[in-house]
């Protein structure tokens, strides 16, 4: 472990270096993680095999037959010193969601607990632009934030063993969509018809770390229409490039 300025370089044996910028979920920390990811992806460091961003750290996997941890550490620290703060081009997505209680098993309970109506919960959730901190848990699962303060609740005391795919969920300061059926302890406040992960596509995941997301509330009728278009592979949510 090497202490240096305000980040730490940790070791994952001879498999990876971990650049840790903090221990919290924080937009400033995330921006530093994603900024370094961009620098390293552009630099194409010899021996580095894969770069994985999380909330507060960047994991640089390497092939110990092609480089050494010490060599790679030096090269990365030098790149960090040389890099200025440039604005980055990111993608802003508009994702349709149906917040009707029929598609949102927990929205009434959430509304009661935070002292708002179901419509107000939906409007607050859809009225916020979210930052994709990282993708993890299962392929394509986007951890997004920050949730408006009024909607923040701890995770459910009794996690579900099966959360249906497409479920829009909230917990603590975060929101996410489950791309696959899986166990889950978050509150389900809607369903999105969009496919968040497609192993037959070139990149697999719809979203990437650093993307921005806004949700658009749709009624049950439009939800069904989009579902059918998704099944025919004829639907892609709208997105555009933005500078951050």
């Amino acid at each position, binding site marked *: *472990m090497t202490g240096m300025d305000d980040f730490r370089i940790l070791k*994952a044996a001879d498999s990876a270096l971990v650049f840790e910028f903090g221990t919290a979920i924080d937009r400033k920390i995330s921006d530093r993680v994603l900024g370094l990811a961009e620098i390293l992806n552009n630099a194409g460091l010899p021996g580095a095999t894969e770069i*994985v961003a999380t909330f507060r750290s960047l994991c640089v*996997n390497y092939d110990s037959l092609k480089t050494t941890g010490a060599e790679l550490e030096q090269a990365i620290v030098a790149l960090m010193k040389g890099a200025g703060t440039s604005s980055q081009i990111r993608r802003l997505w508009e994702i349709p969601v149906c917040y009707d209680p029929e598609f949102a098993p927990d929205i009434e309970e959430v509304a009661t607990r935070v002292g708002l109506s179901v419509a107000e919960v939906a409007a607050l959730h859809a009225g916020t632009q979210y930052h994709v901190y990282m993708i993890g*848990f299962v392929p394509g699962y986007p951890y997004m934030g920050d949730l408006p303060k009024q909607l923040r609740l701890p995770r459910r005391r009794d996690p579900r063993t099966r959360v249906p795919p497409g479920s829009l969920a909230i917990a603590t300061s975060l929101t996410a969509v489950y791309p696959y059926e899986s166990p889950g302890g978050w509150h389900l406040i809607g369903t999105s018809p969009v496919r968040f992960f497609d192993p037959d596509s070139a990149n697999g995941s719809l979203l*990437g770390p650093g993307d921005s997301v806004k949700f658009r509330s749709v009624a049950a009728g439009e939800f069904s229409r989009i579902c059918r278009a998704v099944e025919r592979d004829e639907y892609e949510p709208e997105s555009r490039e933005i500078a951050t």
Partner: protein
Amino acid sequence: MIPVLKVIAPGFHTTIQDEGRRGFQHVGVPVSGALDRNGYLLSNALVGNAPGAACLEIIGTGPELEVVGASVRVALIGSAGGGLEIAGRDDAFVGSGRTVRLARGEIARVRLGGDAFCSYLAIEAGFDVPLCLNSRSTYTRARFGGFSGRPLQGGDMLHGFADDAASREEVTFSAPRDLALDQPIRVVLGPQDDYFTALAIEELLQGSYIISPASDRMGFRLAGPELEHKSDYNIVSDSIVGGSIQVPGSKLPIILMADAQTTGGYPKIATVISADLPVLAVRGGGRTVRFQAVSREDAERISRAEHQRLTKMIQDIRPESSKLISLEALYHQNLIDGVVDAKV
């Protein structure tokens, strides 16, 4: 698509695996691939495949396969006692670590033997399944890659890149592979060793752990001395690599393997060095693991030495008969036991 083998019985958990799926961990896709990378490499090398070819990873019990192509050359790598039982042949049993050519209609039963948790069956030219995110590895949890994203089932038709294997002398290794079942598993402490008490680090390195039978391609759960956290056992999610040793609230370590999720919220006390991941992978439920701490520089040196050892083992693959007529070996035998006339 060339049909090569038909699955008569699938075995307990048989999947198509290759070197793994690299480049998608940042969108939550595990690396997958062969648990025991060395077994995978050696099985492919025996049948003459280029690195990267897909083979079968076999866990638990072996499959029964019928040849439907004109012929196919196969090799099994696993326990010393494992091998292929070929129905209707006089010399029905072909041990692991050797190639054999099977003709259309022949049925091979894979016998695993008791040593290795995972075994590998390669065919000449490799198995042909569609590339999914640049890899043929099966990731069963999200049901993609490999054969329809799942373990094999009876009736499955496996395709290959060749319909026929040329007749030639079969090959084997110069010396059998050592599974090193008693070797300590070497680790580098961290990345979150500072979340643990000094006693916990000592327990990890002095204690002895048993791999739980509930272990699978996602992780090996260990039973043994509890490892105390300094305070909290929850961290804000951080990345995982193959060999990360995470310690959740149960205080018992879990070693994360090929199909583990890419991020996790428990501190990782240590990481298994890359050279020892295959050594760990071949031990399954019920076997013992002891850990030994090394530096990162040691880990890198060991990784290079291990690569050289494997390269040498592959270079020394030789025709089976060359062993039988090795003059040098005969000569030594004469000197030692003196049974054969040395003037022969």
